[in-house]
């Protein structure tokens, strides 16, 4: 019983709310990719290992679209607008959707009548083909990144949960006058110095005074904020989350309310019976690939543009792909709400590990969670526990 307090002693509970938010933001992207895995599996019983590469191509599409709008490496264009971001999103989704359909048409469809292992190996083959073949025609060395100017939403939203100590804050503000005066004196001295990093003794003294005053002020502010609790949400990431939720609502509507969705559900329930009932299964499968891949494209576009500076190479989709796959299995592969749940859980698990001070095991946790879930509930959290005949 004494172990628990010891474990808890090292934890910083003030960062917990922020870390939970970070985890959900991260998990939303995993969920978006996991949806593609789970939808394809639901209909075809195939793990589409090339899905991560579709994600990668989505990032490249977003990059090229941003270039065509003038946001090149040289950084010629400075102004952006939500319209440009929406255009990038739509182009990425469309291109990825068609890439998914093409992969299905030329790689998986010829294999459909073969044993399932053949399709799986084809999937791995396509994945490697795109990773290494992509290097021939995609710019990857040095890896480019989408310009930070694309994202006009740079600020952040602060949600105060607990205010700062106002008495201490007022005290801190009194120190501000000294900061301004010492800074002014130093700036005045700088005019007569020729190099701000090789100062005369007088300059050094004034600089030290200015730095000391600023440090005192900052320490006072930090002290006042010590017990305050603020959740900081970068605007870009909030937009990512909102877009993800909107896309998921559209997906639910598509699957649950439309004829195409009903056909998809029918095919996933019983493939042969659906085709006997007059459902064109080829169309349904192509549709499934289109939707799943478009979601990956959306995730890739947002990942590459809102998390500014992220380098894009042909292996861009590999780690997110593996993690999203785990998320899909975790939630119960073939189950759409399960993929979302699995994604969010994965994101939370990762940030919680960092929060607990074991950041080194961040990537390992995904697989530990998977092993535990598979041991306890082999079908995944929301999956059916049906035993499959081997």
């Amino acid at each position, binding site marked *: 019983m004494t172990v628990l307090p010891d474990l808890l002693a090292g934890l910083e509970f003030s960062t917990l709310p922020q870390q939970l938010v970070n985890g959900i933001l991260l998990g939303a992207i995993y969920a978006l990719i996991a949806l593609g895995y789970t939808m394809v599996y639901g209909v075809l019983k195939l793990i589409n290992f090339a899905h991560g590469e579709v994600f990668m191509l989505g990032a490249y599409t977003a990059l090229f679209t941003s270039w065509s709008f003038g946001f090149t490496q040289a950084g010629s264009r400075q102004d952006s607008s939500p319209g440009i971001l929406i255009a990038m999103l739509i182009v990425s989704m469309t291109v990825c959707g068609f890439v998914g359909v093409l992969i299905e048409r030329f790689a998986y469809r010829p294999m459909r009548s073969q044993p399932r292992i053949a399709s799986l190996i084809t999937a791995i083959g396509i994945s490697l083909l795109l990773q290494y073949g992509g290097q021939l025609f995609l710019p990857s060395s040095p890896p480019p990144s989408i310009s930070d100017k694309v994202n006009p939403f740079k600020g952040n939203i602060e949600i105060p949960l607990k205010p700062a100590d106002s008495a201490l804050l007022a005290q801190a503000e009194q120190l501000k006058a000294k900061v301004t005066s010492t800074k002014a004196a130093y700036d005045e001295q700088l005019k007569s110095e020729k190099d701000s990093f090789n100062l005369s003794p007088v300059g050094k003294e004034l600089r030290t005074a200015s730095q000391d005053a600023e*440090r005192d002020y900052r320490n006072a502010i930090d002290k006042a904020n010590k017990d305050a609790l603020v959740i900081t949400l970068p605007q870009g990431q909030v937009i990512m989350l909102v877009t993800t939720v909107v896309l998921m609502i559209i997906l639910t509507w598509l699957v649950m309310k439309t004829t195409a969705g009903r056909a998809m559900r029918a095919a996933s329930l019983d493939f042969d019976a659906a085709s006997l009932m007059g459902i064109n299964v080829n169309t349904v499968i192509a549709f499934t690939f289109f939707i799943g891949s478009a979601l990956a494209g959306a995730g890739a576009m947002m990942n590459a543009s809102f998390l500014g500076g992220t380098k894009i190479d042909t292996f861009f989709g590999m780690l997110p792909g593996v993690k999203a796959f785990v998320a899909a299995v975790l939630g119960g592969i073939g189950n759409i709400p399960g993929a979302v749940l699995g994604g969010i859980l994965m994101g939370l698990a990762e940030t919680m590990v960092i929060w607990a001070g074991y950041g080194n095991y961040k990537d390992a946790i995904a697989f530990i969670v998977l092993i535990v879930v598979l041991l306890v509930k082999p079908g995944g959290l929301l999956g059916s526990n049906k035993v499959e005949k081997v």
Partner: protein
Amino acid sequence: MNIQFSWKHGLIALAVAAAIGCNGGDSTATTPTVENKGTEATPAAAGRKAPTAEGNKVEGDVIKVGIVGSLTGDQKPWGEDSVEGAKMAVEELNAAGGINGKKVELITGDSTSKAEGAKTAAEKLISDGVIGIIGEVASGHTIQIAKSAFDKGVPVVAIGATKTDLTQEGTHVSRVCYIDDFQGPVMAKFAYEELGLRKVALMTDNKQPYSQYLSKTFGDKFKALGGTIVKEAFYESGQTQFSGQITELKAETPDGLFLSGYFTEVGPIAQQVRQAGLKDVKLMGGDGWDSPQLLTSGGDAILGSFFCNHYNNKEDRPAVKTFLDAYKKGHAGKEPGTTMAALGYDATKLMLEALKKAKSLDSKSLIEAINETENFAGVSGTITLKGFNGNPPKRALVVEVRPQSEGFQVFRKAYEADEIK
């Protein structure tokens, strides 16, 4: 059945991910014992083994010299610049008549920005009969080259590999750059004395031995000066989301952040640090930041940050001017984007100068001659290897990151080798 299949393939994918994820320059192949030596070895530590193999000899009228560089992959900016610098040195020598009437031929090998690639490239060069190898920039790559070269008795002059224990691989390895035992403390001194920082947090790339050791040397010196290292957070090359780590660092209210990794991750980290609301925190790093790519990946967030570098295009030493004029002539008036052109030039020239003084034209004599180098006038400063076990005492420059229009890296302060410790 399905789950089992998917599992196996998940593992395959993971294994591939692990193998490919190492593209930054780390080597998973280095044994733990070699890794551990780094923490104890001092620059002057003696006891370097001499390779026993015979090495290559010059046959015919051409002297073959090899260079390994990252011509593809993440570190292409460094690889390209170092090879260009080496070519210049060779061309200058050949124009001046070569060595004993023999011309020098430079053979390039591509490390593909990976440790395994560096090893393969080095082995290929050795079997092609090169008398010595120049390269690499990343420490993890260079260690592999050094190991291969040791078995064959071929000398290696590293260009930008700063990891301290590298030259412990044997007497055949030396370098033209400073070591991490120097650049970490330089940045610590700069942060404490010039920027007036007292509470610094570290962010370390756990996949790069370079980053791990640099964080350590920075932290040790910063603490010795009286500052506090409030927290160290870890990430891995290839990661794109850093919000978890940044939140943990933010809770400690640091006034500075030392990012010891390579430019590929430093840019996104800088952007996310600013987005998380840490507007005033000073960002600092080592020579791993040295690429104009940093401006694209870091955007506005990285401007006004400081890092440690080997030399600067704007220095007013005559050697720098001569080098830049010659470089511009061969490159349509463009200055090199990174310092690796100058270091590549220095490394090549140092080897060729040693070859002139060598008793005979073979690897063994060349190793001896390189280790006898004294007061070699390089572009990046004067280099003496004799008595320093392959680690020349060098000066380091602290530069500020500015927009491309101001020249990317603006020289701020120089530290001489004897100013630290």
